[in-house]
């Protein structure tokens, strides 16, 4: 540019040349800048590209989870076992005509059949109009919710949130305490384990919807063949596992997916070895190395070392093939499990029965919870009363549960009127033949100690995969993974400013 400026004073044709050439220089510079986009501006490119890529990936992982139903549900479920099985998302929604005077609410959710429930609400409550938006399942949705909270705007009025993630939103004061909108009227209608997980002190931050109590779901044909009755204690379970494996070396009694945090934590809860404690505020308990937790890890490592248990990923094609092919005889199944399992079962249809979970102490009847959702109202909402009314109706009315427990949603109720309803308990599924498995699940639902989730479950789940991948690969043991995870989570919690207790 400097040089062409010097050329300008030359009279005649030269100014023209200079004009052209200065233009050319600018253009060349611009092109060079564009061409070197990856080069000169890379400090930029690094950050910008990864963040752009990040959002794309978030979006795609969301759509991957929903689009590729059965096999991708491995992901959906490992991060997000919602009661309604990690499938259908995009069931086409009939737009419900709303009157222009109706209060407009937006709800985020992903579970199958929720759109039908929303339509029913809009039909029967003309003064409120709820629009359901799917912004990804579980963690994908929570990340987006977290962003709206950080931005201070853009949050929906309501969202589907799993129990374990509620404290993460409570700590940022993002949820509305529903007690001022009469939620306590519903307390007697909701299973205590669900109610407690939605509460903190006297505040109730969400309306519980469904639950995932664990039972021992077993292939009765296989167990009968080897003369095994469903074990009632974990000691008996180990004996049965050895017996089955020695009778048929290709068969193993159980499978545990070490990388599935929620499944492992549900088993720990059932075993009275739940590692977290949190009741709000700035102190949190993390204890993966206590006596009960170490005993849990050692018990399972022992089965794994003797090849009497497998570590196949939950919801993977391999797992379904193991169940259907007589390789795994027992599934520790949440109540919402059989509906999805049925789709991948051919040879053993009708053979699966439910029995209570094996117990740490003979005579107990504890269970653990895996999955289940709530509906929460966000503090950003301008129509909190209307939103609360919807949430309470969603989890606590016969009309909503008629659809929620139906064939599309297939949710297992925390709603006691249905949980105790003889017709509901008498329901059967083809995979279990004439057995009324709902009875076993309903009993399990009444015998759960509510877990206390830490207020940083997203980080806890991310770290889990890192710490436990080696167990599946066989490069580390379960007790060592527990130690590793303990150290990582304590470090994280302290870094976040928490007072951490480890016993």
């Amino acid at each position, binding site marked *: 540019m400097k*040089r*062409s400026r*010097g*050329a*300008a*004073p*030359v*009279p005649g044709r030269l*100014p023209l040349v200079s*004009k052209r*050439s*200065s233009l*050319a220089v*600018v*253009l060349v510079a611009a092109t060079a800048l*564009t061409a*070197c986009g*990856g*080069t*000169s501006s*890379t*400090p*930029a490119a*690094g*950050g*910008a*590209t*990864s*963040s752009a*890529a*990040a959002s794309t*990936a*978030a979006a*795609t*992982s969301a759509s*991957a989870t929903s689009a*590729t139903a059965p*096999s*991708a549900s491995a*992901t959906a479920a490992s991060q997000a076992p919602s009661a309604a099985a990690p499938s259908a998302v995009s069931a086409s929604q009939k737009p419900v005509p709303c009157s222009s005077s109706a209060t407009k609410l937006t709800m985020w959710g992903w579970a199958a059949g929720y759109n039908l429930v929303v339509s029913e609400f809009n039909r029967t409550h003309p003064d409120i109009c709820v629009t359901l938006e799917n912004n990804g399942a579980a963690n994908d949705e929570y990340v987006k919710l*977290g962003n709206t909270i950080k931005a201070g705007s853009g949050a929906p009025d309501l969202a589907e949130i799993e129990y374990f993630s509620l404290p993460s939103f409570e700590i*940022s004061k993002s949820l509305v305490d529903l007690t001022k909108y009469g939620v306590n009227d519903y307390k007697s209608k909701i299973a205590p384990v669900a109610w407690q997980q939605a509460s903190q002190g006297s505040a109730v931050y969400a309306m519980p919807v469904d639950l995932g109590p664990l039972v021992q779901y077993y292939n009765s044909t296989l167990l009968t063949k080897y003369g095994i009755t469903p074990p009632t204690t974990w000691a008996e379970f180990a004996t049965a596992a050895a017996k089955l494996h020695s009778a048929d070396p290709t068969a193993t009694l159980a499978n545990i997916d070490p990388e599935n945090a929620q499944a492992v934590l549900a088993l720990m809860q059932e075993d009275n070895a739940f590692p977290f404690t949190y009741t709000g505020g*700035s102190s949190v308990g993390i204890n993966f190395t206590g006596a009960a937790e170490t005993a849990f890890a050692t018990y399972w490592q022992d089965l794994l070392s003797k090849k009497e248990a497998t570590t196949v*990923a939950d919801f993977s*094609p*391999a797992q379904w093939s193991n169940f259907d092919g007589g390789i795994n005889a027992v599934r520790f199944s949440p109540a919402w499990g059989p509906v999805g399992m049925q789709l991948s079962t051919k040879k053993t249809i009708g053979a699966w029965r439910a029995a209570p979970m094996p117990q740490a102490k003979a005579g107990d009847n504890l269970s653990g919870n895996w999955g289940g959702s709530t509906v929460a109202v966000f503090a950003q909402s301008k129509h909190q009363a209307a939103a609360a009314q919807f949430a309470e109706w969603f989890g606590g009315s016969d009309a909503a549960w008629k659809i929620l427990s139906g064939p599309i949603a297939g949710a297992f109720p925390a709603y006691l009127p249905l949980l105790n309803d003889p017709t509901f308990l008498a329901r059967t599924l083809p995979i279990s033949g004439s057995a009324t498995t709902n009875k076993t699940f309903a009993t399990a639902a009444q015998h759960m100690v509510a877990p206390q989730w830490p*207020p940083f479950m*997203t*980080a806890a789940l*991310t770290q889990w*995969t*890192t710490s436990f*991948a080696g167990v*599946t*690969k066989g*490069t580390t043991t379960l007790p060592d993974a527990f130690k590793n995870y303990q150290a990582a989570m304590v470090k*994280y919690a302290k*870094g976040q*400013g*928490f007072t951490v207790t480890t016993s």
Partner: protein
Amino acid sequence: MSMTQDHEVRPAAVTEQHGVAPIRPRSSRSRRRAELTGFAFVSPFLAILTLFMLVPIGYAIYSSLYTTKLIGGTSYSGLANYRTVLGSGEFWSGVERVSLFAVIQVPLTVGLALFFAVIFDAGLSRFGRFFRLVYFMPFAVPAVVASVMWSFLLLPTFGPYTRLAKTLGMHNPNFFSSRLIVPTIIAIVVWEWTGYNMTILYTALKAIPSSLTEAAILDGAPFTTIVRRIKLPMLRPALVMLCFLNLVGALQLFTEPSILSAFQPQAVSFGFTPSLFVYNTAIGSAEYNLGAAAAVILGLLIGGISVASVSLRRRSGELS
């Protein structure tokens, strides 16, 4: 380059004319007009650059200097986040992994692309046009789709390639095991990018004057000599540029492992690549400030390599 030389001859004339008053205002006006025109041309680019590059970078640098805690809120923390990232074994293991990845993937991709480009250019293949299209096709498949597709094709126990390997006598290979995951991703990336690289090299080969090749043939040079002595030297700038672009791409590896991790979570760890480290720290652990610091460090690393490569190319005369 010729333009520069042109101007360098001129300064003498300029000084002579310097004091001529009547011409100056006109020239300065036209100069300003020229500058305005130029600015009008670049302004869309500048606007986008500012909005989607400069502002986000500024924001990333700004937030990397703060720390947000669940208990205690946000506070200025200086370079503490940088120290945390630089002291993290997980971050460096990712850098090591992508470096290994680049050392294998870049020469492999460019080498294969060169091989095919030379063959098509020499007309050694009968259906050149058809095969060029076929080899280019993977590039038209978005990386996300390609990763999903390959993760099904390579599925342990059930995937067709796994079964093929089994029938060939290999013992049930797991393409996503810790030992095979890097080679698997290399294979996917090579599959995606060879066609694109080949197209660039093919175009560059077509730009070589045919008179040169004809002269060499008349002189009795065999095919290999023509390739080695004429085509390769003339392709050098294109080859160097492709190597560099592939290298930067390799260091930013993100899409393939992040999609594979959705199908095989045990195969891809938290900090499998530096970009994944940034993503998982910011999104997975909700430590946005730490993630921003890691992004800035990664950007500086790649920026350093870019600057080094540009100055190298400038010295060797490929850039001016």
